[in-house]
């Protein structure tokens, strides 16, 4: 069996194994899930090492017939492949999962079997989204990956879990179904569902059509990211989800949105992206600041991190729609960075919640004296999230702001403001949790992190430092594909300015 099929469907196989194991064998269930994800992680790393970043071509491609739409004879194929736009996402998904599974030791105690099944199904769904190179297959995985989180939040979530899970599901589904219409229109127009072929041809569509199709796709992805007006489901879903659900949601699921914007927005419709870039940059930049303000106002730590997610993903969108080389590389890297740092934050919040059973900021204070190891990890993560130079967040945000400044200085400046606000809410929250006197009796006798908890965070900590010091190998992975995308953007830019030349040149254009 080929490598990509193996990576994608191994978790599903694990889920079947879990399903066949009796529910009373909790240890065995956890072991099966952990071993499966570890094997997938190893396969993911192997894929990463094999991957040639200088090439723009799809690598390890799989292509098998799946079904043929009747009448039109359009072949829908089972096509998987990995390129520079998806490789980091695939590896992130593969590497993050063992951590997530390990973290469930602490907080999933009821219905363990079902939880493991959903976790593993989710991994198949997410990997499928990043690996599919057939549009129908992509859509297939895209919607299937909704269901596991729906169950995770709904069964193992907090008090308002039913509200949160329905809201999450319906919000995303509304976007997805509008995208479905765009998918159908695109497929029947070009009579192929092959994403590579569509990416090559869709640029030839007239601009109005491109804009409509782009809008159809972008709506679904903007909801998933979530971009500014669509962000309300995220805070609820994050707050109510169990820790591991939050980690997957922040770590990978939201990246499906930004990844989609990149592949089905920028790559597929360069002219439309160029046209709408100001709008998306604005939404991104405003999202950065607005998310930061939201985060400042929260009293629940988890909700605070959820709001910071809105802010951080604003960077990704800002950089992407700067449509410059630096912005695009930065935004790809920042997707990984956000997965690492926000994932770690949610893990840490989960660990303290397991001990204190509260997430209210005013219930903490002085934790650093009772839990020094925890304090170390929290400070480290906060600094990574606040983009301290030397850690991963810095590289990504720097590239993004650089790229944005080249394109539209105004939004870059607003984005920089966000960096400051980000530092404010993160550091204030850290101070209130860790430092000062111990004001609550319960906080005096908290157990510090155990070996499992430290161990499950270590890979991500290592990655954070590694990316911070040595970002080039990671950035190089997307070099070839970004060259290809940039070429398209330049072409579209040329066409756009050619169209503009009909009217007298503005000063700015003369300068150029």
């Amino acid at each position: 069996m080929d490598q990509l099929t193996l990576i994608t469907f191994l978790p599903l196989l694990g889920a079947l194994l879990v399903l066949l194991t009796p529910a009373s064998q909790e240890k065995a269930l956890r072991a099966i899930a952990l071993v499966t994800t570890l094997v997938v992680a190893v396969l993911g790393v192997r894929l990463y090492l094999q991957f040639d970043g200088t090439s723009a071509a799809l690598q390890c491609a799989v292509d098998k017939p799946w079904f043929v739409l009747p009448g039109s004879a359009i072949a829908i194929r089972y096509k998987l492949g990995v390129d520079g736009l998806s490789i980091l996402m695939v590896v992130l998904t593969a590497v993050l999962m063992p951590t997530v599974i390990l973290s469930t030791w602490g907080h999933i105690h009821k219905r363990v079997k079902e939880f493991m099944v959903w976790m593993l199904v989710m991994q198949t769904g997410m990997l499928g989204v990043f690996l599919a190179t057939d549009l129908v297959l992509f859509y297939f995985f895209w919607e299937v990956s909704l269901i596991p989180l729906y169950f995770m939040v709904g069964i193992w979530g907090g008090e308002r879990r039913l509200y949160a899970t329905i809201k999450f599901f319906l919000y995303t589904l509304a976007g997805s179904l509008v995208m479905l219409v765009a998918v159908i229109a695109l497929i029947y127009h070009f009579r192929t569902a092959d994403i590579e072929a569509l990416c090559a041809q869709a640029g030839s569509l007239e601009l109005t059509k491109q804009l409509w199709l782009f809008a159809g796709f972008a709506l679904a992805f903007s909801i998933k990211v979530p971009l500014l007006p669509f962000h309300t489901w995220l805070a609820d879903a994050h707050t109510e989800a169990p820790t591991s659900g939050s980690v997957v949601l922040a770590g990978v699921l939201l990246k499906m949105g930004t990844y989609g914007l990149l592949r089905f927005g920028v790559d597929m419709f360069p002219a439309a992206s160029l046209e709408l870039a100001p709008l998306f940059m604005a939404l991104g930049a405003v999202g950065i600041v607005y998310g930061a303000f939201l985060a400042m106002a929260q009293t629940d730590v988890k909700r605070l991190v959820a709001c910071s997610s809105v802010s951080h993903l604003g960077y990704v969108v800002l950089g992407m729609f700067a449509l410059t080389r630096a912005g695009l590389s930065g935004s790809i890297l920042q997707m990984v960075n956000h997965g690492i740092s926000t994932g770690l934050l949610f893990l840490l919040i989960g660990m303290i919640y397991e001990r204190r059973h509260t997430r209210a900021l005013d219930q903490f204070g002085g934790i650093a004296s009772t839990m020094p190891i925890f304090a170390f990890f929290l400070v480290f993560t906060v600094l990574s999230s606040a983009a301290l130079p030397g850690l991963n967040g810095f590289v990504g945000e720097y590239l993004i702001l650089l790229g944005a400044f080249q394109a539209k200085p105004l939004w870059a400046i607003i984005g920089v403001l966000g960096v400051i606000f980000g530092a404010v809410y993160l550091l204030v929250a850290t101070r209130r949790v860790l430092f000062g006197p111990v004001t609550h009796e319960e906080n005096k006798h908290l157990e510090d992190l155990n070996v499992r908890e430290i161990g499950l965070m270590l890979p991500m900590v290592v990655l954070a430092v590694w990316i911070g010091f040595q970002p080039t190998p990671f950035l190089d992975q997307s070099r070839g594909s970004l060259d290809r995308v940039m070429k398209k953007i330049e072409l579209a830019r040329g066409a756009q300015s050619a169209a503009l030349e009909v009217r007298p040149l503005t000063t700015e254009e003369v300068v150029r």
Partner: protein
Amino acid sequence: MNPQDLLHLFDERAIEAVRPLLALSAGLIVLLLSGVFDGLKALRGPIVVATLLFGGWLTASNFVTQPGVVLDGTYSADRAASAWGLLFVVATLLAWLFSHNYYSDEERPFRLEHDVLMLTTPIGMMLMGGAQNLIVFFVGLEILSIPLYALASFRRNRARSVEAGLKYFLLGAFAAAFFLYGSSLIYAATGTVQLAEIKAIGIHGPLALAGVALLMASLFFKISVFPFHLWVPDVYQGSPTPVTALMATGTKAAAFAFLLNAMFMLPAKAAVLVAVVALVTMALGNLGALAQTDVKRMLAYSGIAHAGTLLLVVAGTLAGDPESGGALHAALFYMGAYVFTAAGAFGLLALLERDGERFTSLESLKGLAHRRPVVAAALTLFMLSLGGIPATGGFLGKWMVFSSLVRAGLIWPAVIGALLSVIALGYYLRVVIAMYMQPASERDAATQSVRGVSAMPATLAAGVCAVFVLVMGVLPSLFLDRLP
């Protein structure tokens, strides 16, 4: 017409074409005869199954050999009609399996009558699906409807069931009258009741148009499309659940099969009107379902919404879908998936009712995942398929309906339809929430399987439904490649 000509009509091809009908009728008579002798009681079940399987096999062979239009152009047994025929047989078989051991003891003496009535329905459906003539359709409609009126009120000691039967009968009678009146107007305008001839002459003038309108009203009644959908919730809820399954799947499919054949009577200008009617139907069905606390009634409303969705393909065709057969493909696949999904869902409800979950309310489904994990999982699968989530047959059905619209250039109806189907997930997921995410109330937790009768046939049928729903979703080529 003298007898000689009549014999002449029954050439080899014609006999081949009507073999399934003959087989089903013969089985029906044998079943009736078996009722005369008490000693043959044990054989009745096998007779029903054997008749349906044999009828299905003959239909399948027609699907391959395609006898075509026979009997002086009144009845067709081409690929499409045979595919529909297979669906009808499957729907009946599933409904019958679910009815096994469903009724309580005081209703059981009439088991034979029940089976006879149920076995009559596929004959009517096949006549409707293959009809190339308004009168043949009408005969089929009556053969289907009259047994259903009786079946709807089969739990005669329950007021709701009797009410369902009465309502269905009164409104159904109106619909039948509409159909006849419409046919007579069309006959007055064109001088024929043969579809092919009407097509050649064309629908011109107010008389013919009025006839078409009446005809459509009657079909819309059977498919449960706005504004003729109001009977559905009461009838579906009151009827015995296996009968509801049959009505929801078989009747709808049969009427839709004919609607596709008679679609040419609608003027192309009506595309927007049909699209609006379809979207309003979807909206009313989905919003109505959202307000329900009884799952059976909710599924009734969802059935209305599905009828609306399917009607969109008619709008697509009228608006000039460039793909010939696009509507037929979409309708066959959509209805195929719907037959297995809806029959499965109603069937599981029947199973639960029978096993002592006294009600079909959402309340009584709470905590089902603990009590009966397999049933809950299967019901979840059916809910997701009804909602059109990928990896289930419902998704590709939805895909094909919307693609017909998109090809015809009706983008906005497609977008609105897509958004309306988001509402649907709102109530399908409520069922899942009740089963998986809410604890059982104490009364239900104590309820055990009280009757202790065999659930084998119903379980088997539900299993078959689940497998088909999944296979249609994951390996659709098995079905798509065989579409006519």
